[in-house]
């Protein structure tokens, strides 16, 4: 296996008496999209900024692309790209000029036109940044982070405040980054985003990692009981007792089971025999969001 792009062990960060990060261990592999999830104030941005070389840590060891980020060098900066949580672009420069400006900082930048294409702004290449929409600006922001052809990109809550279609477009851009072979460290509190984009996810709460794994495995999601929900017109008095259906909200019936295939077979067999419609039938595993809320609700929501 290739060497990890990020390794942290026992990472600590205290601001005075307040411990924002309380011993984090994690590894991000080369070429993977790693999503770092957590509520506001859980220590996400602090951790990210330590990895990016913006903040000193107060304990533990960190290695990013083979170097300690607490002493960033110019050569190291050449190899990472950063999209900050909040950063405006100069409204006076066009998309192309903005990328030309930043391209000049790197020894071997990507081609401007190619980068504009990667972030889907070809039609806007000559437009001033001041005239772009929020979603377009954010994509320009990613273009700026990408222009130096970095090995590792940090994206700090890149889609906060996006409408759904801008978010979809942005996800396409991240998928592009992965195809280009970039490693991506993404912080977000959008579960859908983590589910779609990430190879692996870590959830942080109150300065500690409370779960880590593939998004579909997180918190043993695959082995947890599924919930089968449906409505039956004309009542379900003769529903087999073995199915143990409970009445849920708005006339819905719910069956919680660890063997949904068998239960569904029995349930649909029963419905076919009686020519009964199972309205609104769905099978649901706990979503990433359910797991996330369960894992983070135990921890107090510290203010930064």
């Amino acid at each position, binding site marked *: 296996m290739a060497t990890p792009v990020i390794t942290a062990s026992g990472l600590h960060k205290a601001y005075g008496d307040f411990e924002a990060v309380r011993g984090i261990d994690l590894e991000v592999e080369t070429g993977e999209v790693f999503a770092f999830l957590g509520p506001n104030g859980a220590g996400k941005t602090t951790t990210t900024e330590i990895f990016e070389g*913006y903040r000193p840590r107060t304990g533990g060891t960190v290695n990013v692309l083979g170097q300690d980020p607490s002493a960033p060098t110019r*050569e190291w900066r*050449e190899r990472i790209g950063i999209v900050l949580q*909040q950063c405006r672009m100069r409204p006076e*420069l066009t998309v192309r000029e903005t990328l030309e400006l930043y391209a*000049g*900082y790197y020894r071997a930048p990507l081609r401007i036109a190619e980068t504009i294409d990667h972030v889907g702004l070809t039609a806007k290449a000559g437009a001033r940044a001041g005239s772009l929409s929020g979603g377009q600006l954010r994509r320009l922001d990613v273009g700026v982070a990408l222009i130096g052809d970095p090995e590792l990109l940090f994206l700090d809550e890149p889609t906060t405040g996006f409408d759904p279609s801008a978010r979809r477009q942005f996800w396409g851009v991240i998928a592009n980054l992965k195809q280009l072979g970039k490693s991506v460290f993404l912080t977000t509190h959008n579960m859908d985003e983590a589910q779609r984009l990430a190879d692996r996810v870590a959830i942080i709460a109150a300065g500690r990692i409370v779960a880590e794994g593939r998004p579909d495995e997180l918190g043993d999601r695959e082995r947890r009981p599924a919930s089968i929900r449906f409505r039956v017109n004309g009542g379900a008095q003769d529903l087999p007792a073995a199915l143990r259906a409970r009445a849920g909200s708005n006339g819905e019936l719910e069956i919680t089971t660890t063997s949904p295939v068998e239960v569904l077979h029995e349930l649909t067999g029963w419905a076919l025999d009686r020519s009964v419609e199972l309205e609104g039938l769905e099978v649901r595993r706990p979503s990433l969001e359910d797991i996330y809320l369960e894992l983070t609700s135990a921890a107090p929501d510290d203010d930064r």
Partner: protein
Amino acid sequence: MSAVGLAAHQFRFDQKVFWRNPASVFFTVALPLIFLVIFSTIFGNDTIEELGGIKTTTYYVPAIVTLAVVSATMQSLAINLTVDRENGILKRGRGTPLPKWVFFAGRIGNAIVVSVLLLVVVTAVGRVVYGVEVPWDRLPAVFVTLAIGAASFCCLGVALTAAIPSEDAAAPISNVAVLPLYFLSGVFIPETEIPDGVLKVADLFPIRHFFEAFFTAFDPNTTGAGFEWDQLAIVAIWGIAGLLLAIRFFRWTPRAQ
């Protein structure tokens, strides 16, 4: 790219940003010219007997050059750097391989080029519209004054950002720092109209000394080369103090988060 090439690259884009921003062009370039016209119109072609019978317009050319340079250096830098700091642009720049000094070279280079341009334009308008003599014999003194003053006020502008907590506060604070001094130092009102006690207060700050150095260099009654080394030394001391404060207190990350 070589270090100098990189600084030139940064400067080229800083110039683009400057000239495309209507507010910076108006406040930095147009406003001093408007002041020159207003003051010259109000005080007309009076002469100032206490200053060897020069015309008020002759007085106002170095006064407005002083204002223009302070505005292009200290005020522009204080406002623009604060806005960029609060918008995350400085922080993002720190996350790239761009060396810090190159970033400042671009910004300060921009301020100095605009200062030289304004010196030329204000002097030319003075000559063409009001017949104010161009001090050809004392040009070295004019440019040395400009160089020392512009460098010093750039340092003060960078230092001033440390006192500005937010984007909204940038313009008011930088105006409060200079506007009263323009009145006290004889930039807006001829110094012969200002009581001695007030001028003594103004002497505590750098604008008055910068103006006196420019005045001597521009004044047709000056004999000799027109260098005011004592005044320039005080301006330079302020500049060095600003530089030290800037090194100690300048921030790259937003404060109002």
